[in-house]
């Protein structure tokens, strides 16, 4: 289990995308529901704007948080490990772009995973 400081460094350094730096300070491990809640609480206000806009699109997930964390689990990411969570999110987002799993949100081409992440705050 990594420390809060380790998670901060890991997520800010490796995610390097829309949300990486925002996740700094996410609380330590716990169950998935708690991790989701921790992440949601740490997302800045702007994430809710993105998440709401995405949820208005046709075909959005009923439960974006579950879908996101299912993907993380399927990728073998231990979401209770903060460092692994940061790296896993980064990988998921970059893979989304590489594999064309993108959504056009108000014209912005975003990764489906980052949309789901933002939806946690919406």
């Amino acid at each position, binding site marked *: 289990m990594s420390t809060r400081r380790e998670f901060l460094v890991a997520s800010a350094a490796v995610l390097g995308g*829309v949300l990486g730096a*925002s996740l700094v300070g996410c609380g330590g491990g716990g169950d998935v529901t708690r991790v989701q809640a921790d992440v949601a609480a740490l997302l800045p206000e702007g994430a809710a704007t993105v998440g709401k806009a995405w949820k208005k699109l046709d075909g959005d997930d009923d439960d974006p948080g579950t879908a996101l964390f299912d993907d993380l689990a399927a990728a073998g990411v231990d979401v209770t490990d903060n460092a692994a969570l940061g790296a896993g999110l980064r990988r998921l987002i970059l893979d989304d*772009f590489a594999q*064309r799993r993108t959504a056009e*949100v108000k014209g912005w081409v*975003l990764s489906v995973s980052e949309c789901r992440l933002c939806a946690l705050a919406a």
Partner: protein
Amino acid sequence: MLIDTSTLSDGQSLDADVCIVGGGAAGISIARALANTALKVVLLEGGGFAPTERSQELYDGEMATIYREGTSRAGYDRTYVGRSRLRYFGGTTNHWNGWCRPLEPSDFATRDWVPRSGWPVTRELMDPWYAKARELVEIPEFEEDHGYGRKPDRRQVCLADNADIVTRLFHWSPPTRFGKRWRQPVVDAPNVRLILEANVLRLAGTEGRDAVTHAEVQIEDGPRIQVRAKRFVVSCGGIENARLLLLSELGGDNVGRFFMEHPHVSHVGQIVILDQQGTKGLTDLYFAARKDKRAGGRSMGVFATSDAFQKEHQSLAFCLQLRDRKKEKLNKVGKALLEVGPTVRDLGTDVEGHPKTPYGGRLFARGEQVPNPDSRVTLTDETDRLGLRKARLAWQLGDQDLQSIHTSMEAFARHFGSTGIGRVRIKLKSPDEWPKTRGGDHHLGTTRMAADPTQGVVDAHCKVHGIDNLYMAGSSVFATSGFANPTFTITALALRLADHLKGLP
């Protein structure tokens, strides 16, 4: 030498080995290359050394841009035909911005998904002429080096190329105003006679139309003369080259057809840059358009789609330029992305309402269009004050041209996301609706080069098919356009043509 036209008389005939019609980038390059040789050269320039309204008005014509069949946008920038080119010594280099880049090797190649693509010359064959052209446009050696021309202490981070997206560099000419910079070598050459304000009315052909006998020339407020020459080179620009051949009834049915521009979409999208690793370098290299030019920077990076991508997606050449916009307005999601992204500093400019970045910028696209026989220069029934029918331009873009912009933009958006650089907003509407598009004042293809006479007007040596002594120079010979600005290639082709002329008996 500069000819004093007051010494000429009505009906006088001048003899030359080579008569060059038009003193722009191509004509001056050829005259300079032929200077101080054994060849007797006459260079006819319609204007003077300085611009005048009286000369410029002879370029007025009719514009009828049609983006897609059935959706006529006639009336789009009615002044384009007249204002996008300049009629005085130096030609359109007098308002050239200085962008230099050779066409890509793939631009010269036949691409089976691009109708009528393929030049009868290769990039490899052109490389020595590009090298010589550097002197004329005043750029140092063209290196595919991202540190080119920059201070050593400045970072030159360049995004790594991947399978879809590559970085390509433009180099800046000062820009060279050919009419000023290269006037003296032309005027000083004892074998070159430069005649200003020499309006060529037509090229007279033999009865069989297989050779040009002379040019009929009306000196402004002066006599009408003839210039007889062994060989004629027409280098008046992409619209006027076609017009002169049409007026002279020379060159066949393809004259004027296949007009191409570089479709410019200046609001094709926006970008929010988020990645701290790459942005300083991105600023240095990719945001160099205006700021760095003023600061003496000499190169600028653009993103382009790779050859492999174009082949896989049947798309056309395309490049994307980042433009810093202090007042770039983002929508709600764009502003939110700024908020949730990491703080990026040191970028020089800020988005309105977001004073310390991340950074929002505008994306500017420039693409290729498919050679299209219906995109063409013809003649109107209206005549100018010399009694010559004016040019009518119907610039026509097609579905493949638009589809290529969409496909390419989607690839760029994915690329910026997958590299972590940032996020892109694509500001295109439906796949069958053209965004606001303009040209770059590039007039290409109207006497295009093709080995097969049924597919073009000139051969690989720029000689008009079926006419023994008539050559075309300038952007009108482009078979396809690529995305690069044409002046560098115009100059290289002109030098190659001059060399060919020197070798003829």
